[in-house]
């Protein structure tokens, strides 16, 4: 297989394509958050911390807590150090733009409403002061108290004037399906601010219909299914018809499952229309108008041509965006990842599609 993306030959000579990494995970330490909380929330944080279990507590990662072995800064945590992120990602791979996704929002956003809002607000303040102000290549997602949608909408409105916040962070597992009406203030605020929703896998995974799995392997494979469930919830509950301009980015859930999901929805919809009267055209059309995907961890059939076929069936190649998932164990490097994608799509996937969604400039190359 050949790659149309030449490797970076030497410092100073840039390739002619833009690289956007749409899934980078910063991690705030307690010392970053405490000074940004009111006295009351600070005492709460020091006393109780966060009561919401993160996915690794239920499904432990197999090695090194699920992080790259080389990503632990002295006295810190993977993703807590901007300079290390520059060294290992932004500079090393000549990344033009990186989108931060602070996964602590998945847990903190589920706490008692005002505490959740304070934690997410402190997380966003830290991102502004310690990452966005110091590194112009970075953009961020807004962490929100997503189980308190009214407060989440306030946080979105508060950040909307800062153009460095380019999307609103959601998880895939909520107390209810994220399509249900109680979450709509989030989508209204995002649509008003012209910001996409980025649904990153994780959060509170509930019973799943089949019951709780036992292993991380199962949980990780299920990431595609949980993303499909999220899209179904949004579609069937009417989010895409209520908010016709809203865009939803599916982060870290894979892509290839979207074809079979759309076939199933389009096969069933004509027979079940009374159940979803708000859907006035085949469900696949809503998905193609509202949904984007990030690549890591993209499905890998034995024959790469099979992925090309699956992507052609999906028909959304202009809505697929490269992601590295730094600093997690299954990191895709911007240098190696293009080989996973069909040659004709590599330039768009590596940067052009993300630039279009997020309004970012493409790389200028001297003639």
């Amino acid at each position, binding site marked *: 297989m050949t790659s149309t993306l030449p490797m970076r030959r030497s410092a100073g000579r840039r390739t002619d394509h833009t690289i956007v990494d749409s899934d980078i995970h910063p991690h705030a330490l307690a010392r970053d958050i405490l000074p940004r909380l009111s006295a009351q929330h600070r005492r709460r944080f020091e006393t109780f911390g966060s009561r919401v279990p993160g996915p690794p507590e239920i499904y432990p990662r197999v090695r090194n807590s699920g992080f790259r072995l080389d990503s632990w800064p002295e006295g810190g945590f993977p993703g807590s150090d901007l300079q290390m992120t520059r060294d290992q990602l932004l500079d090393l791979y000549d990344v033009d733009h990186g989108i931060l996704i602070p996964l602590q929002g998945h847990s903190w956003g589920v706490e008692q409403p005002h505490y959740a809002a304070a934690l997410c607000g402190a997380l966003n303040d830290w991102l502004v002061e310690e990452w966005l102000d110091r590194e112009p290549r970075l953009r961020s997602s807004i962490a929100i108290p997503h189980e308190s949608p009214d407060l989440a909408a306030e946080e979105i409105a508060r950040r909307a004037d800062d153009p460095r916040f380019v999307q609103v962070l959601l998880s895939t597992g909520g107390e209810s399906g994220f399509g249900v009406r109680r979450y709509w203030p989030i989508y209204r605020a995002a649509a008003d601010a012209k910001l996409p929703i980025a649904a990153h896998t994780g959060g509170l995974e509930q019973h*799943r219909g089949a019951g*709780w799995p036992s*292993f991380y392997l*199962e949980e990780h494979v299920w990431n595609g299914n*949980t993303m499909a469930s999220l899209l179904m919830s949004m579609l069937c509950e009417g989010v895409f018809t209520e908010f016709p301009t809203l865009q939803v980015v599916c982060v870290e859930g894979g892509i*290839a499952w979207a*074809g079979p999901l759309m076939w*199933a929805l389009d096969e069933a919809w004509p027979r079940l229309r009374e159940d979803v009267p708000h859907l006035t055209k085949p469900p696949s059309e809503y998905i193609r108008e509202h949904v984007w995907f990030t690549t890591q961890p993209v499905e890998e059939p034995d024959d790469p041509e*099979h992925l090309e076929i699956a992507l052609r069936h999906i028909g959304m190649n202009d809505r697929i965006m490269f992601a590295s998932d730094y600093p997690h164990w299954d990191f895709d490097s911007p240098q190696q990842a293009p080989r996973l994608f069909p040659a004709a799509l590599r330039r768009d996937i590596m940067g052009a599609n993300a630039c279009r969604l997020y309004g970012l400039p493409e790389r200028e190359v001297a003639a």
Partner: protein
Amino acid sequence: MTSVQTAVVDTDVHCSPKALSDLSPYLDAYWRGYITEGGIALSPTQGGAYPPAVPTSGTPAPSSVDELRAGFLDVRGPQLPQLNLAVLNCTTSFHCNRNPYYEAALCRAVNDWLVAEWLERDDRLRASMVVPTLDTAAAVAEIERIGDHPRIVQVLLPVRTDAPWGNVRHRPLLRAAAERGLVVGLHAWGRIGNAPTSSGMTHTYLEDYIANSQIIVQGQVTSLVTEGVFAHLPDLRVTLLECGFSWLPTLLWRFDKDWKGVWREVPWLDAKPSETVRRHLRLTTAPAQLPRDPEQMREALDLLDAGSMLLYASDHPHDHGSGGERLLAALSDEERERVLGGNAADWYRPA
């Protein structure tokens, strides 16, 4: 479709008692009292699975052999292949209440009713037996009681469960089936009351319908393979019924990739998940969720290896639309012969 000469096996034909009173002869006095005094009745929607007026539900499932013959078995036109065998699936116990003793009694009654009123009245019929899902020991006892009946070919399990079927708590049930050469069938729908998706309860039937015909089953497949069920029970065969099939290739691409990444967690897996699945699983043809474009449909069937993996099912009386006809028309003659009967004959090895 060209006329079919091959032996046709319909692997998913539904039947259901008209009322719980149909099962009275097969229940003891305590359970008859439990039902009549408690006012317990069959759910008119089968636990939300098949609301009667919904087009995909079709007509009510036949409640007697005569009804099945008159409405289905003996009514064969050019579009309907001549049946050699039909596998009866009764899902009446799937959405049972949470009393595990009642669930066991209900399953026993359904099985006795299937044998006495169906299998012994028409040579073309085979059946899946049902087992309680809340009490593994009772499920094993039921398989030991009736699983050796020559016309019982499968143990039918709901795809919606408290815990996934690969979970170690269920292993004795799967072992009891495998030891008798019974196929284990996972069929759409099942346990009510649990959230049917990863994010909670749903408000629309469409969401439930797709979750049951495509999504939940993927968690079950992943569970069965990951927990080492097939390494433990190398003779076990599993059929996925009314759960769709077009989602399988993309699931296996994810599964193989993730296994390569975290194989340390599951050292008992000695082959790629996709190889294990292709050896131990088959899927029924209804509902057929396929692209409309004929070229894309053919590609989807090739990715699946449809000629090897699929077992024909009418899913009578359910009606999922035209996908099943489009599927059969798209298969080569050789593939169609395999799907209509050859695969099922190899898989179920019916007496």
